[in-house]
């Protein structure tokens, strides 16, 4: 495939390098305005850099957009990436355009304006975070000196299977102790075995550091989820 990469910053540089190293043997051209960045591409990757403004039709003409199978715009500016791809489509009928976007909210408008694919590092990192972070976090309040114990806080979601259960019924991890409950209107209760857990209770507990996840699981899992926390 003939692939044109617009922008030779870090993303463009490594993208071009990977494409060149791919077993398919792509033909790659990199367009970059900055002389030093162009020079680096030429030195490291060979004679594949074209210096110029990738948004200008004259540069696009020279680069051979007309025979490109794919145009990938990875400058740091969303608006430049949009225009590169739109002009590539409208004037040069490039079959596939890919735009890097910084603001994840631009994804839908780019799609609507005819860009085939958008790639957002921001969105990718956000997705990772959402995967890693439980919806109802365990908040570490205080590390007790020695003994590996800490005081934590967990909010009981409405969907949790412990809602309506007595504390005496709960299967808490070893050496975990529920010490205080603050209900949703802010009233504190000192819990006993017969205290019933209600939705949206803030539960303050002492637990072993390594049992935090398990404790959170007990207090937040909905009936259908497994023992070790519900992850979305």
């Amino acid at each position, binding site marked *: 495939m003939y692939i044109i990469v617009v922008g030779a910053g870090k993303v463009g540089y490594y993208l071009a390098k990977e494409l060149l190293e791919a077993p398919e043997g792509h033909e790659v051209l990199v367009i970059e305005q900055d002389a030093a960045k162009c020079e680096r591409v030429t030195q490291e990757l060979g004679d594949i850099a074209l210096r110029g403004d990738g948004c*200008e039709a004259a540069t696009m003409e020279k680069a051979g957009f007309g025979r490109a199978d794919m145009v990938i715009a990875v400058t740091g500016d969303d*608006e*430049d990436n*949009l225009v590169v791809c739109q*002009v590539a489509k409208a004037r040069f009928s490039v079959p596939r355009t890919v735009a890097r976007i910084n603001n994840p*909210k631009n994804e839908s408008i780019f799609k609507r304006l005819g860009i085939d694919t958008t790639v957002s590092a921001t969105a990718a990192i956000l997705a990772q975070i959402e995967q890693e972070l439980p919806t109802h976090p365990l908040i570490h309040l205080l590390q007790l000196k020695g003994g590996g114990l800490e005081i934590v806080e967990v909010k009981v979601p409405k969907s949790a299977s412990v809602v309506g259960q007595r504390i005496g019924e709960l299967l808490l991890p070893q050496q975990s102790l529920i010490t205080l409950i603050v209900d949703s209107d802010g009233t504190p209760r000192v819990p006993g075995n017969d205290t019933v857990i209600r939705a949206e209770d803030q539960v303050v507990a002492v637990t072993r550091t390594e049992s935090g996840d398990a404790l959170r699981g007990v207090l937040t899992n909905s009936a259908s989820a497994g023992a070790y926390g519900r992850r979305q």
Partner: protein
Amino acid sequence: MGCGRVGAALAKMLDADGHDVTVLDIRPDAFKRLPVDFKGVKHVGNGIDQDVLARVGLADADAFVAVTQGDNRNVMATQMAKHLFGVRRTLCRIYDPIREEIYGDLGLETISPTLIGAMMLKGMLDSEPAPKVEAEAEA
């Protein structure tokens, strides 16, 4: 969007005509170009951020004009105004005549001051200036 010389002059005219005008620019300094008695709203923000466009009330606007220094910024903001916010009239300044033609073909109302300026200059060169009246020349 864009409170440069053109943006500020246009905002001043529209304000004087009695329209409700909002001026958006990423640099607060730019609003110095507006007259002191400007009655419209000045908003500091990035015009290619749809949250900013929503905040300035673009959905309720009858018209949107993009006159920042960046052709691509103007193109992107105008298309967002048209396609995301449903603004009835959207005008877009594009210095590059080729891009202006392309986006004109794509359905935007575009203007290229580069081409218009060059044509006007050529027109001036082609025609001899009227001989100056002496009194005027002295003044």
